Structures are given as structure tokens and as C-alpha cells.
């Protein structure tokens, strides 16, 4: 009896501790942002958002993040495929390098891009000759976003590919399906939940990226100023209202994306 009571106390204690931690660390700050942004009323909030520089920054961020996500969906799916299906020397090293963008300070990533793609670098010069500039323009922002969000799609697709039963593929072959048809109709649908949830995480991470982007974007208001840098600028110039309005927009987008990821994963578990 006493041990049951004991256990119950422990379990209650643990649950409460986790809840408290969660509330303090995540729920309070989020509510704080929403509260702060609306503290001056709805009209002030919309005024802050209708500021052209603000919504331009948000729009640009969403556009470039989508682009970066698209790149990662293709490259990430391909990389996951190669890392799981092929055996070649260096595969394990490559596989462990995938997580590097997670471990590396994003400012270091930004610096890498700055040095590698700058106007005096080989790639920079080549791009210049072809008629466009990478650094301090949109391509640099996309590259920074792609680099930082690279692992998401790979890491979401890999377990699905690994647990996929070879016999499903073989069944398609014995039914007469070509390799291409088997890929599109049998293998890809198996990877799709991973691709989708990986893409959504990559997207919301790309929306939020600051460190890598701020070094390479040039941050020209209305041109290459993305939302997170805009927020930073507003705080620097003591306009808390403008910063929180844009923050709320980003936060809401991220929450929506997270909720969709959860939904996709729940549906997958239902399978």
C-alpha cells in the first residue's frame, strides 16, 4: 500500500515538474509575445504589420524559405536514398556529416558562405561572369537556408526507407512493374510522410534562420531584409511593437507548420 502511494507521489511529482518546465520555457514566452504585440490594441498591431518594410520582409522570408525547402526536398530525398540503398566507401562518414549543420553555430555557416561565394572567390566570379551576384542577394539567403535545414528531410526519410520491407518492392516486380513504376507507385508513397514532415520542419526552421543569413544577406530593407533580421533591427531601434508584430506572424506560421507535421505523423501512425 505504502509503495503504491509512494509511486503515485513520484509520478505526480515528475508530471508536475515536466509541466512546469514546459509552461515556463515555452508557453509563457509564447503567450508573452502574443500579449505584448496586442498590448497596444489591434489597430496598432495592424499598423505595425502594414508597414511595407515589415510585410515585405515577411513575404520575402516565406518565399525564400519555400524555395530552400523545395531544394531540400529533392536533394534530401536523394541523399537519404543514396545513404540507405547504396554501399560505398565513406558512406558512414557522409552519414554522420549530415548532422553537421545542426551542430555548427549558424554564424560559422554564414561566414563559410561569405568566404566561399564572395565576389573575389572562384564561385562568386563565375556567377558574376554569368550575370548575377550571389552574395548580398537572394541566392545567398537561399543557400544559407538550405545549408541550415539540410538534415531535416534526410533524417525524416531515412528511417522510413530503412524499415520499408523489400518484399513490397519485389511484389511489384513479380506483378510486372518496371523499376520506375515501382519507385513512383510503391516506394515514393512509403517515403512521402517523411518527405512531408521533413519539409515542414525545414520550412519553419528556414523561416526563423538568423545567424547564417544576417552575414550574407546584405540586409537591404525591402530587398534582402528577412523577417528575423527585421525583428532584430526593430529592437535595436527601440520599436518593440514592430518587432513583436512580425514575431507573432512568424510564430503563428511556425505553430501552424508544427501542427501540420503532427497531423501528418498521426495519420502515418494510424496506418
Amino acid at each position, binding site marked *: 500500500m505504502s509503495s503504491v502511494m509512494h509511486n503515485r507521489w513520484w509520478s505526480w511529482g515528475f508530471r508536475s515538474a515536466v509541466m512546469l518546465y514546459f509552461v515556463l520555457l515555452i508557453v509563457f514566452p509564447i503567450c508573452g509575445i502574443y500579449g505584448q504585440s496586442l498590448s497596444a490594441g489591434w489597430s496598432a498591431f495592424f499598423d505595425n504589420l502594414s508597414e511595407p518594410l515589415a510585410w515585405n520582409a515577411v513575404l520575402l522570408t516565406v518565399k525564400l524559405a519555400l524555395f530552400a525547402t523545395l531544394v531540400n526536398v529533392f536533394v534530401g530525398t536523394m541523399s537519404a536514398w543514396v545513404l540507405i540503398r547504396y554501399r560505398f566507401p565513406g558512406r558512414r562518414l557522409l552519414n554522420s556529416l549530415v548532422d553537421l549543420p545542426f551542430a555548427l553555430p549558424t554564424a560559422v555557416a554564414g561566414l563559410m558562405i561569405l568566404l566561399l561565394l564572395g565576389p573575389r572567390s572562384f564561385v562568386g566570379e563565375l556567377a558574376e561572369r554569368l550575370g548575377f551576384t550571389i552574395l548580398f542577394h537572394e541566392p545567398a539567403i537561399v543557400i544559407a537556408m538550405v545549408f541550415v535545414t539540410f538534415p531535416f528531410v534526410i533524417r525524416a526519410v531515412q528511417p522510413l526507407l530503412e524499415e520499408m*520491407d523489400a*518484399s*513490397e518492392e*519485389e*511484389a*511489384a*516486380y*513479380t*506483378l*510486372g*512493374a*518496371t523499376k520506375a*513504376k515501382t519507385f513512383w*507507385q*510503391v516506394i515514393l*508513397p*512509403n517515403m512521402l510522410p517523411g518527405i512531408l514532415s521533413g519539409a515542414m520542419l525545414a520550412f519553419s526552421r528556414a523561416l526563423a534562420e538568423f545567424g547564417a543569413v544576417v552575414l550574407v544577406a546584405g540586409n537591404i530593407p525591402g530587398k534582402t531584409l528577412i523577417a528575423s533580421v527585421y525583428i532584430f533591427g526593430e529592437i535595436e531601434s527601440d520599436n518593440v511593437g514592430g518587432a513583436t508584430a512580425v514575431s507573432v506572424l512568424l510564430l503563428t506560421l511556425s505553430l501552424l507548420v508544427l501542427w501540420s507535421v503532427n497531423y501528418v505523423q498521426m495519420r502515418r501512425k494510424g*496506418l
Partner: protein
Amino acid sequence: MHVEVRGLHKKFGSFQAVHDVNFSIDKGQLIGLLGPSGGGKTSILRMLAGLETVDSGDILFHGQRVNDLPPQERGIGFVFQNYALFKHMTVADNIAFGLEVKKWSKAKIKDRVAELVELTGLSGFERRLPHQLSGGQRQRVAFARALAPEPQLLLLDEPFAAIDAKIRHELRSWLRDMIDRLGITSIFVTHDQDEAIEVADEIMIINKGRLEQKGSPWEIYKDPQSPFVAGFIGESTIVDNVSSLRGFDTASTWPGTKALIRPEYIEIGQASEFATKLSATERGRVRHIHFRGSEWLVEVEVGDTKLVTYRSLEKQVLHPGEEVQVLIHRAYLFNDNDSWIMENKLKEDPLPVHI
């Protein structure tokens, strides 16, 4: 489809999975590949399907060598052990897959799917996804999907392994009926001798990559060609010094010969139960009895040899420790070179001498 296999070999690394297997199968037969796990049955099946390459030897369908044909072009249906249904497709889409590949018209596909759904008793489940079905239903979807493109050869890898005992029984006879009705040549792999005996026209016993024997279940039971086959089919006890048993003393002419004795070769009971055959019996002692649901399983000791036999529930119940008469009708003798069946000499004696 007439299937012929000549000198089939397959190695995985240094492991010889299949070793010099030869057989031929007539059109419309249902063949069971039976043997212990890891014996090479599934490898043979997968080579027939083209899912595994052949190291050496030939596979012929209708007299045509198909070694180099990919699985897509062999005209076979394959039912996988875990069914391998397409998880994201409905039952109807699963069945239609092979037909769409063959570019059948929409209307024809619809008809064929409806026909197979009817045949496999899946009516009402067409729109379900595989995870919404029971094991037995999934098995039937896999079967319908394999049959849909009208293959000439149906290959089944442990088709009932993942289904619980009761439904397995129903599915077995259902499969038997279905294959009889369709007249399609079929080969299935199993490690369950009851399954093979019950369902197959012919059984091929595979052990350590070799084909030990091919024949009807009755032939294999009655006339096993190797000690492995004799021991694998049915229940049995191995007796080392068979010549000490009454009626088998001539076995001592072949030194090193052992005997395999099946429970059904042995009769036990009180002396009064034997009448004229009494002279061929010898005394033994009941050690244990086990109730088997439909009969008694009796362990009996003759001299220092332990034997196992059945006893009908209709007869008088024996008790452990009781002295009984034991009649051994026959034994399957084998040594390193040879194997044969020996009848009890005294039982055959037309004029037994009573003293």
C-alpha cells in the same frame, strides 16, 4: 505451366544454400516444398520467381530457359510470407496493380477485380486499407493480387505461417479448392509437415540445400528414401540396438544399423488383446501416459529401449508401471549406406509355435 529445374546451385557468400537440385513439375499440380528452416526452400522459390539469381543450373518453364528473364517477364504470381501488400492502396487497388501494369482497359480491370474479390470472399472490403484487415483477409488479398494477372505459375512462401492455427486450417482447404478450380500450377514453401501432407499433391523434402525426396505424401510416409525423410515426416523414435527387439533379431547381420520406429507401428495391450499374434509380442512396462485429446500417448519400456505409441480411448486405460505386451509391426532400418523397411519376422510366421 510445366516447370523443370536442372542442377540448380546457389551460394550466399560461403554458405551453400541450394545444392544440385533437380525436379520437374507437371501442369496443374500443387507442390509443397517441405523442410527445416534455413534448408534452402525459400531460395529455390525465389530463384523460380527471378528474385534471386542462379549460380549454375537451369530453370525451364514450358521447356524454355528462363534463367535470365527478370521477374517481370516470367508470368508468375508470388505470395509473400508477410503478404507484402501495398500499404497505402486499398484492397481493390492492390488487386488491380498487376492489371494496370499490363495496361488492361479500365472496364476489364474493374471486372477482373470484382471477379477476384468474389472468388476470395472479400466482398465489402474493396475500399479498405491493408491495416484494416485481419491476417486471414490480408492473406487472401495477397492471393487475389498474385492471381489477378492470370499467372501460369503461383509461388507461395510460407503462406500460412503468420496466421493463427484455427484460421490456418480453413485457409488451407480454401487454397486447395481454389487451386483445384483454377488448375494453376502452384508451389508452396512450408516447414509444417501437416500442412504439406494435407494440401499438396506432391511433396519435395528439402534439407541442407538438397532435394531429399519427391513424391506424394503417402509415398513419402510409406517409403522414405533417407533417414532424414523418415525422421522428418510423422513421429518416430530412433532405436540403437534394434536386434534386441523381438522379431528383429536378424538385424544384427548388418552391424551399425539403427531403427526408426513410428508410434503407429507399435501395438500394446494385455496378452488377451493379441490373440494369434501373441508370439510376436514381448513384455514391456508402461512408463508414462499422456492424454492427447483424441487418444493416449503411451511411453513404454522394452528391456532398456524406450518406445512411444498411441492407444485408442476405447480400449482399457493403462497405468504407469503396468506390465503390458508390446507388438512391433515393423521398423525402418538404416545405416550409413542403405535404408529399408523390415517387418516383424515372427508376425509373418504362418504357424507360430506355442509352448
